[in-house]
């Protein structure tokens, strides 16, 4: 579904990603972990097409097509979804209308008629229940005056409604208390299907107690320095990123010396 080859990304001349390789197949859950400033959010933003980031080298294939050549709205319509770390506020834009516009833009891209209002309302109610959300939030302006936790939940609601093929969850766990985290994780687990994939970007492994990843990658200083199974997350929990960093340095030294 997603193949990233030697991806280099800069913001304003500073290189943030220094050659990332990653393959994500349908039906898989990947976790990308790393300390602050390692380039996790840069990776998700670049995949989503944020024009503030410049790709300086590398290639990304998404469903066989050149992802980097697609404008951001086309990526979204092709099923790529980013749950933002810091969702923006859209004053005066009602959450429900916003979602409906998004749903219909995606449907139009797939040559489907706009969804009937009553069908949309039904779908929305269903997903509100799934995410155990306060239903009054959809009547308010998008994210305006929402608490940190409400914003994150709203992202998950949008994801549930839009049913992406590839979901990128950028630090979705931050700002959620433990109960909310469990609810959100349950919701995400129910959205898992053999034909879609989820990439979770996180600082801590606590979210991974609830959404079990098939693969864990450690991103440090713009490179994926280690990949492994779920146990890698647990190792990180006990050793911290410093431990991993030490290992990597040692391995690199041994390779150089050998």
């Amino acid at each position, binding site marked *: 579904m997603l193949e990233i080859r030697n991806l280099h990304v800069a913001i304003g001349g500073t290189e943030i990603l220094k050659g990332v390789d990653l393959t994500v197949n349908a039906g898989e859950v990947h976790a990308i972990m790393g300390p602050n400033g390692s380039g996790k959010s840069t990776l998700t933003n670049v995949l*989503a*097409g*944020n*024009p*503030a980031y410049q790709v300086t080298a590398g290639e990304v294939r998404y469903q066989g097509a050149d992802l980097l050549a697609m*404008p*951001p*709205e086309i*990526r*979204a*319509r092709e099923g790529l*979804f*980013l749950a*933002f770390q810091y*969702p*923006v506020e*859209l*004053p*005066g*834009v009602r959450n429900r*209308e*916003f*979602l409906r*516009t*998004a749903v219909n*833009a*995606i449907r139009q*891209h797939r040559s489907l008629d706009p969804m009937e209002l009553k069908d949309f309302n039904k779908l929305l109610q269903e997903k509100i229940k799934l995410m155990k959300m306060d239903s009054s939030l959809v009547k308010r*302006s998008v994210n305006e005056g929402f608490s940190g936790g409400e914003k994150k939940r709203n992202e998950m609601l*949008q994801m549930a409604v*839009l049913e992406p093929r590839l979901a990128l969850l950028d630090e979705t766990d931050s700002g959620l208390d433990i109960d909310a985290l469990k609810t959100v994780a349950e919701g995400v687990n129910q959205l898992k299907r053999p034909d879609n994939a989820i990439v979770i970007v996180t600082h801590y492994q606590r979210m991974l107690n609830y959404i079990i990843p098939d693969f864990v990658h450690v991103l440090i200083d713009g490179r994926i320095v280690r990949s492994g199974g779920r146990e890698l997350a647990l190792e990180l929990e006990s050793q911290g990123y410093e431990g991993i960093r030490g290992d990597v340095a040692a391995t690199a030294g041994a390779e150089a010396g050998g």
Partner: protein
Amino acid sequence: MTTPQSLIQSEYKYGFTTDVEQEVVPKGLNEETIRLISRKKNEPEFMLDWRLKAYRHWLKLERQEPTWANVHYPTIDFQDIIYYAAPVSPSEGPQSLDEVDPEILRAFDKLGIPLEEQSRLAGVAIDAVFDSVSVATTYKETLEKQGIIFCSFSEAVQKHPELIRKYLGSVVPYTDNFYATLNSAVFSDGSFAYIPPGVRCPMELMTYFRINQADTGQFERTLIIADKGSYVSYLEGCTAPSRKKNQLHAAVVELIALDDAEIKYSTLQNWFPGDADGVGGVFNFVTKRGKALGRRSKISWTQVETGSAITWKYPSVILQGDDSVGEFYSVALVNNYQQADTGTKMLHIGKNTKSTIVSKGISAGRGNNTYRGLVKILPGAAGAQNYTQCDSLLIGDQCGAHTVPYIEVRNPTARVEHEASTSKVSDDQLFYCMQRGISAEDAHFMIINGFCKEIFNELPWEFAVEASQLLKVSLEGAVG
């Protein structure tokens, strides 16, 4: 991402002309023009006298047009304007729709304002003004049953001279300002409404103003009187053909609310704005003022201003009755080379009077937008309160937004608050929308629409959607 680029150059949808036989008085302005207009309208002596007083006063002003507004335009040649143009009609003004030229009915249909009573706008009584005269007023009989008078100004002069005599110029005297004085001398038609005591007007009253004839000026006059304890919601819409030459529209609107009465006055102004290069368009120089005369009376202005090459208008409220309320809600949009200098005056005279001002200015292209407002609290206005909020939204980097608030407080118990903000549609907001599959253009409209939401909510629901559409059409080509 916010860099504006011309995707589609929008066409002004209402720019067509209608071919009807018109009766036109020769260009130019002198006492004879005024006598001629008055004669055509078969006006009583007092009306002619009033017009002539205004004209003589206007002459004394010696072309002293107001120059304080932040708008720029070439000198207007007042002798090069036709002051009266009316479709030729078989009788002395149409008595029913059957007598109206079908071409005119078709024109109004095309404008989305069908005049048949069982139509899309069923439930809205419409006075249709075509150039200098009212061509039809719908639902008159329905309204008459409740004692409501809704007719053209000319008809009111004939049938209700006592009301005209009592209230004409009582809010905007003929000496008020250059354009109001000119209007007082030459005004040709407009709407008149009177709501009797205790009556809540059961439907929206609407006047649709259409300029058709080339080289004419439209000088209409509207007078609305809400008697004790009554309520009325009134709406006006305006369009004009696309012409290369500028046209002058200098209207006067006077509102009077007696004890416990409420007038809600909404405007969708979509005069021809000129083309993308700033050629042509209507000069909209208008004086609108309401007098909240009675205790606990309320006057509320809502305007959505998207048209005109130049807009110069300040719908105001004189808060004379104790506990009276004045409101001004405004969206003013300028695109291409449009200029707007608009705002309000809230004059607090009575005790515990309250006013609210919410102004949203949107500037795109090379448009220039100025909010100008005065809040004046007089010594007797103990406990007066005002809240003002002025927000500006800029699209692109060649437009202008200015806020010029004047605040004069002469009573120590008054409370005045002013908030102002200037913003742009942020890249983060756009990216967020686009990440959900929404195009940049739709994202812009959505965000701009959200910016105006507070004002659209004040409009009668039939027109809130139209206002948002109008905004969209006016912005086409500016975002993408």
